[in-house]
């Protein structure tokens, strides 16, 4: 028997250039998707409990991003600035929808105790997804402000680091919190 514990390796994912609905994934999106797939899919697997479903959703998200990028190019709009972040956000939304479906089916199963536990778990999963959505929708300065806030930095310490007043830093962060509050309210999760 081996004396050392072997760590479980992250599987490498070979994404298809077409999603399961037959929609093509653009080469640029595919290369970005390939890059973030191990992390994104293992994260989704933890939430959804099924690697195949996670992979399908990821390919769906990549196809949707390809379509969006194509439409933007055709209509002469500004191209997507950060494909990686855009794809990640799309994937998060897709997972969120899938989780909502799972909640629906859990409610139909009429197992009251189990349902209560599931709802509690889903609330925390939903909260994590919402946090991801809200955080990734913020600009990097606001993201960094939140990270410093997590470590207990005061507004007077945060503001000058970014060449702004303490009040300006506080307002930026407050807007992000407001967005989260609204999103929680819209989804019926207590905030």
């Amino acid at each position, binding site marked *: 028997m081996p004396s050392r514990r072997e*760590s479980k*390796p*992250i599987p490498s994912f070979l994404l298809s250039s077409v999603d399961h609905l037959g929609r093509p994934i653009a080469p640029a999106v595919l290369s970005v998707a390939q*890059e*973030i797939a*191990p*992390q994104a899919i*293992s*994260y989704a697997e*933890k939430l959804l409990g099924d690697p195949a479903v996670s992979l399908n959703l990821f390919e769906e998200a990549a196809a949707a991003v390809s379509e969006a990028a194509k439409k933007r190019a055709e209509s002469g709009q500004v191209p997507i600035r*950060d494909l*990686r*972040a855009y794809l*990640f956000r799309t994937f998060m939304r897709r997972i969120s929808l899938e989780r909502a479906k799972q909640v629906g089916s859990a409610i139909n199963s009429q197992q009251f105790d189990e349902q209560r536990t599931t709802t509690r778990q889903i609330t*925390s999963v939903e*909260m*994590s997804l919402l*946090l*991801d959505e809200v*955080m*990734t929708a913020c600009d*990097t*300065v606001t*993201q*960094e402000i*939140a*990270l*410093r*806030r*997590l*470590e*207990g*930095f*005061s*507004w*007077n*310490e945060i503001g000058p*680091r*970014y*060449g702004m007043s*303490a*009040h300006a830093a*506080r*307002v930026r*962060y*407050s807007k992000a*919190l407001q967005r*989260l*509050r609204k999103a929680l309210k819209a989804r019926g999760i207590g*905030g």
Partner: protein
Amino acid sequence: MPLSDEGRTKVTDPFEKKFLRILKRHLSRDFPNPKRIGCPPKQQLMKLAATPQSVRDWVVEHLLICSPCYRAYSEILRKQKTKDAGPKKAAKSRRAAAGK
């Protein structure tokens, strides 16, 4: 505004408290990344803590999807905060001593 007072370190708003608690737990646990795919070097994290504007956006974005990097950055910020608080405390105690 539902936030704590300007200049104060302590978070008083319950919603913000909850937000920070869940966000911290989420960022430090939910993105294991054992192979450290796409991680920036530690110097970049130190640079981000010292002069945030000199670091490229992807480094901050990466911190939101990689728990090991987030934990490392969190540690750097904690050290920075302690270091910054040191001279302030000393100055305060000097002022208090002079006032006697």
